[in-house]
């Protein structure tokens, strides 16, 4: 045999066949693909929900649904997008698939625990579905589950919160696995400053997953207990303080934003140097800014609470810290752009998506400054401005990084190449639709339209109509993108081991990789982004 069989043809543990080879697998690659399937399922559902919400808002008054359904839908959209898409998307799919390979090892440290996390993820998702159909239906509290509303609410808050708790546990265990793998399974010859940036970003994310997730765990436990036993810990009539719920909630949910965005930044840090054929600029600065974002991101949670009635001292402290978090993100953006300077840039779909990421994420970050400043936040807090801001970060950032990662690693994961032309069309339409969708929302917010509004004052109609229009273009673009990727199976153009001229270890193994990733011991480079001698090799690929 000249070529080794890929992980599709060999199961781990050996001897399993058929569906069992997937459902009982310990192979991090298969698990990554299983997460991919589940996450795409949820993404599609939440995207459709979002589209329905925007359709409802396109004209004043009732358009396609009533207020009750609308409120449940935006809660469901939020819960799915946060817990079932944005948090697991990059770490659980691409992290599982590529972290061990980038570290030069054959699997994660706890392969069975990894499988268990996947099952937790599925159970959490299943519970979310169940909570739609039993009792009084899905909660209409918003994904923030603010007390006292979430405690008095008659709907299925308890079940939904339990689902989120289980999903949190899954995410935490994945983080635990990654940290252990990072420290114990890394190729012995690979020093800390020889680790690819994607893996570094996953490492800092993993710490946030481990340390922040339990806070939401206990918060949700308390919500459930409160609903079952009415202890009164958050009930103002019984001496409780609803603001403490908000503190606990954001103590997790703000760091969770970094769980979502840091891996995305890692993906971009991989893609930019490869297609610029130039080593990443400021490797150490990027590593340190990842860690700095992870740490500082845990210190700013109460900037979601300027209007909540908390003390002015708090507003001062948290506003100050918030502005300091902006700096490491800015450093990353500058480093990416400096990487392109005097490079030899090749346009490809993943690179185009990465450029879109930089632009959209910058808009997200800069609008965040408006929200970080105490005075201006008061005006735009809880308005469409906030909605647009975090969609720029979470969707323009994490979402587009996810698309970029999908296009970047697709040949490696499935061993087939896709068509570039359709991918460009999809990406461009998605980005144009994105701007049409969210820029009107920024303006609506500045004009004073609150979020989570089923209906609105007449002056907001034009903006809402435009936003809905943009949503359709965006979804159309995304559909083209996905259909194009799926069509690659039909065409079946085989992908070479290194279609892009990448330098990190995953490009040294066949596409798709064999079950133990490396046939021979991999060669570890002194610097993971050294492009000397890559030039001619990609000529041979004949592109």
């Amino acid at each position, binding site marked *: 045999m000249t070529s080794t069989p890929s992980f599709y043809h060999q199961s781990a543990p050996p001897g399993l066949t058929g569906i069992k080879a997937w459902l009982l697998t310990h192979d991090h690659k298969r698990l990554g693909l299983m997460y991919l399937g589940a996450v795409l399922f949820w993404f599609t559902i939440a995207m459709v929900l979002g589209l329905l919400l925007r359709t409802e808002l396109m004209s004043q008054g009732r358009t396609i649904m009533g207020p009750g359904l609308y409120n449940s839908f935006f809660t469901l959209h939020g819960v799915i997008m946060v817990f079932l898409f944005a948090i697991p998307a990059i770490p659980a799919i691409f992290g599982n698939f590529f972290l061990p390979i980038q570290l030069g090892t*054959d699997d994660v*440290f*706890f392969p069975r*625990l990894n499988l268990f996390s996947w099952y937790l993820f599925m159970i959490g998702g299943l519970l979310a579905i169940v909570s739609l159909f039993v009792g009084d239906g899905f909660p209409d509290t918003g994904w923030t589950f603010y007390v006292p509303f979430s405690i008095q609410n008659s709907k299925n808050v308890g079940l939904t919160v339990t689902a989120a708790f289980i999903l949190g546990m899954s995410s*935490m265990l994945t*983080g*635990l*696995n990654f*940290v*252990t793998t990072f*420290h*114990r*399974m890394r190729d012995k010859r690979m020093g800390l400053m020889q680790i690819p940036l994607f893996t570094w970003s996953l490492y800092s994310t993993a710490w946030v997953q*481990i*340390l*922040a*997730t*339990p*806070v939401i*765990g*206990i*918060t949700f*436990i*308390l919500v459930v*207990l409160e609903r079952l*036993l*009415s*202890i*009164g*810990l958050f009930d103002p*009539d*019984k*001496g*409780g*303080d609803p603001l*403490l719920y908000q*503190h*606990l909630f954001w*103590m997790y949910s703000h760091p969770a934003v970094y769980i979502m965005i840091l891996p995305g930044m890692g993906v971009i840090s991989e893609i930019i140097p490869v297609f610029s054929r130039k080593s990443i600029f400021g490797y150490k600065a990027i590593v340190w800014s990842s860690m700095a974002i992870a740490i500082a991101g845990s210190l700013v949670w109460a900037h979601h609470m300027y209007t909540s009635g908390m003390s002015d001292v708090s507003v001062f402290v948290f506003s100050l810290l918030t502005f300091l978090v902006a700096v490491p993100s800015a450093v990353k953006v500058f480093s990416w752009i400096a990487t392109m300077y005097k490079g030899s840039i090749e346009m490809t779909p993943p690179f185009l998506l990465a450029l879109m990421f930089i632009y959209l994420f910058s808009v997200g970050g800069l609008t965040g400054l408006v929200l970080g400043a105490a005075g201006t936040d008061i005006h735009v807090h809880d308005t469409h401005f906030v909605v647009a801001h975090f969609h720029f970060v979470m969707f323009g950032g994490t979402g587009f990084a996810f698309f970029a990662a999908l296009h970047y690693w697709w040949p490696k994961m499935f061993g087939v190449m896709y068509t570039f032309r359709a991918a460009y069309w999809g990406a461009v339409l998605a980005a144009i639709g994105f701007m049409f969708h969210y820029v009107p929302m920024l303006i609506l917010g500045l004009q004073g339209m609150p979020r989570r509004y089923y209906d609105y004052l007449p002056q907001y109609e034009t903006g809402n109509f435009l936003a809905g229009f943009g949503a359709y273009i965006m979804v159309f673009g995304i559909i083209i993108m996905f259909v194009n990727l799926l069509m690659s199976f039909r065409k079946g153009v085989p992908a070479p081991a290194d279609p892009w001229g990448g330098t990190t270890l995953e490009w040294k193994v066949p596409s798709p990789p064999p079950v*133990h990733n490396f046939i021979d011991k991999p060669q570890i480079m002194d610097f993971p982004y050294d492009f000397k001698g890559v030039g001619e090799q990609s000529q041979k690929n004949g592109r």
Partner: protein
Amino acid sequence: MRSEIDRVGLKIGMWLFLYSEIILFGGLFVLYAAYFHKHPASFAVGGKELNRVIGALNTVVLLLSSFTVAASITAIQKGSRKLTIGFLIFSIFCGFIFLVNKYFEWGAKIHHGIYPNSETLVNGEPGLNIFFGLYYVITGLHGLHIIIGMVLLSISLALVLAGKIDGSRFSMLDNSGLYWHLVDLIWIFVFPLFYLVL
């Protein structure tokens, strides 16, 4: 393919899990701190209601069991299997004693009409309701951890009996021990905060 067991790695994994447990309880301690600042007088009154003797007794029981768990790990490393088994049985027994004490303590409170959403608490001082609310949640969650710890220790015991844990492979016992110590650690803070305040 790992040919040998990476004991340090298993331990790191366990510690990471323990961090998440620490933060889980940490969320409750945040509430405790904030509410203590808000209602110091009620917390003092509430603290007086709790029985210091039972609390101190439970502390001693947990410390003893922590010692025996640590000793069982020493024993297995030194190769004395019988001693390991003895220490483990004693530790599990201690956990049991702790739960029995807790049962009587909670029982007495509930008998006096002090339980979540009870008439006495709802109509009484709000601070007192919060104190006992936290008391039930924290000690309840801690009790749950005691039970989980006992299960882990029992599994280790079974594995020792089956000969699957010995002087060269004892990570399961080591990690169960770490878990048990964590449960002890949390109690060390719970005890003064609830039983000895002011």
